[in-house]
């Protein structure tokens, strides 16, 4: 995998010195982390719940390690990253077994409580189990093609189901919402306009204009995506309008998402300060 030399951008001697300094700093940070943890969350204190306290320390440690990537790649992050990959792998294996393979395959075939049950399991499971085993043929370099039978089924099913599905949820639902008389844009309880924002943004004139803008924008964006029309003359103007709409939309979506993502960061900060360091902020 990574048989490329890791990017080394400083001369060898300086690099070595720097590495030593970094390792020392990391070791120091780990020690500080452990000391702070044991002061704030002593798992061996009387009446403490050691499982919970150690859990908190581990969770806080991993949180800090993951954040350390923001500074730069470092040995602790490499450990954390690989551990995380491993844990998520193990988790998936266990869950796949518990939720799918055991109840769907193992129990019906090997723990069938009655003869009739076994018979019906065989009837329903022989083909998918065979396909599942064919899929594993991919491991062989030479006979990898036998796995095609398994995924041909999945791809065929996906492609067939997709047509009615997108017709309904992408085309019809969008058209239902988009094709409306302009009169309907005005809500039933449009407030009496006393201020600018009420009149123009929520009142009567605004929504009608908005509905028109939405219609023109949709057409322009659709036009931008035309593959077989060269963007020249009128076409160029319309597709440019399309781009402007796309840009406004992307900017708006970006701005809209900031809050949700910040909430996640606030959550982590709350965890580190409130739970790990146990600083109450009431």
């Amino acid at each position, binding site marked *: 995998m990574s048989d490329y030399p890791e*990017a080394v*951008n400083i001369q060898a001697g300086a690099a070595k010195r720097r590495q030593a300094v970094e390792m020392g700093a990391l070791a120091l940070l780990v020690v500080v982390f452990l000391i702070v943890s044991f002061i704030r969350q002593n798992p061996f204190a009387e009446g403490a719940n050691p499982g919970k306290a150690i859990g908190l320390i581990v969770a806080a440690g991993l949180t800090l390690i993951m954040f350390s990537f*923001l*500074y730069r790649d470092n040995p602790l992050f490499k450990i954390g990253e690989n551990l995380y990959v491993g844990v998520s792998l193990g988790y998936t294996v266990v869950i796949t077994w518990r939720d799918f393979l055991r109840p769907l395959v193992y129990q019906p075939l090997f723990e069938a409580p009655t003869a009739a049950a076994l018979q019906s399991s065989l009837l329903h499971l022989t083909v998918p189990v065979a396909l599942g085993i064919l899929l594993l043929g991919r491991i062989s370099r030479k006979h990898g093609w036998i796995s095609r039978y398994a995924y041909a089924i999945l791809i065929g099913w996906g492609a067939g189901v997709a047509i009615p599905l997108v017709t309904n949820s992408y085309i019809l639902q969008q058209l239902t919402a988009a094709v409306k008389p302009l009169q309907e844009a005005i809500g039933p309880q449009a407030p009496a306009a006393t201020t600018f924002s009420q009149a123009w943004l929520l009142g009567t004139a605004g929504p009608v204009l908005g509905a028109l803008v939405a219609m023109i924008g949709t057409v322009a964006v659709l036009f931008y995506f035309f593959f077989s029309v060269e963007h020249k003359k009128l076409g160029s103007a319309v597709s440019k309008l399309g781009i402007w709409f796309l840009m406004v939309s992307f900017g708006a979506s970006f701005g809209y*998402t*900031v*809050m*949700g993502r*910040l*909430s*996640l*960061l*606030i*959550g*982590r*900060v*709350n*965890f580190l*300060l*409130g739970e790990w360091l146990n*600083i109450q*902020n009431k």
Partner: protein
Amino acid sequence: MSTNQSRPRYYELTRRIIYVSIALAVIIPYFYNPKQDFSPSIEVRKVYDKVESLSPGDHLLISIDYDPSSEAELYPMSLALLRHCFKKGVIPIVMTPWPTSVGIAKKGCDEAVADANSMFGKKVVSGKDYVFLGFRPGITNLMLKMGDNLKGAFDKDYYGQPTQGMKALAGVSSLKNVKLLVDLAAMGTVEWWIAYGADKADIPMATGTTAVMTPDLYPFYQSNQLIGFLGGLRGAADYEKLLKIPGRGERGMLAQSVTHVLIILLILGANIHMFASQLLRKKEALS
């Protein structure tokens, strides 16, 4: 396109300055709680008014449909709702259809119970003033079952007390006897609760969801299937504002405001820098 070696030093530097300033903008507000001026949205106000209109002894069902990864946005909502219930004497029934949510649901109950003692001087007792039912599997089936027979779906509460004959559940045989259903969801359970819970039992329903999910709820709100909703951290802050008990939501909003303004200033600064250097270059070219 430049690589790391040739990339100007200040690129890495500005990057780190930005990270540090964002971190500070989020951490510092954790310690401050000034009064903020904002008007709660109408959707949140409707939820608040509904809870406010309940009388002591009425029941409110809260379904915890989020796990610790969405704690930041939804936990403050649970807390605000529970505090409101305890303040009013409304009996909250807390449950979850997800095994991963039990811990956080319990944490919310415990914290609100402690608050009730310290804030309103009330001694709130499990099984009398609130019920924590814990987790049962089945999701949609569970909802249907609760619609028929709530005590059958949860024969015991989280602490192993039988629900039959429990004082807090007096008069509740099914969802139909619950005065309001609130789904705090980070997963796609809102539609199910509407279809299998609220619509079937014909009870009003409200939700609290992550900011990302909230725009999808407007159709349900317009068709009155939801009486209102709390959207993201802002929703929690609005509710806390109405309740006049500041909490993590409001404090979170301070961090949000600071960080948003910081990002905007960063963008503006970058643009001013760009225009200024363009101007400078033009001048140099002229001279």
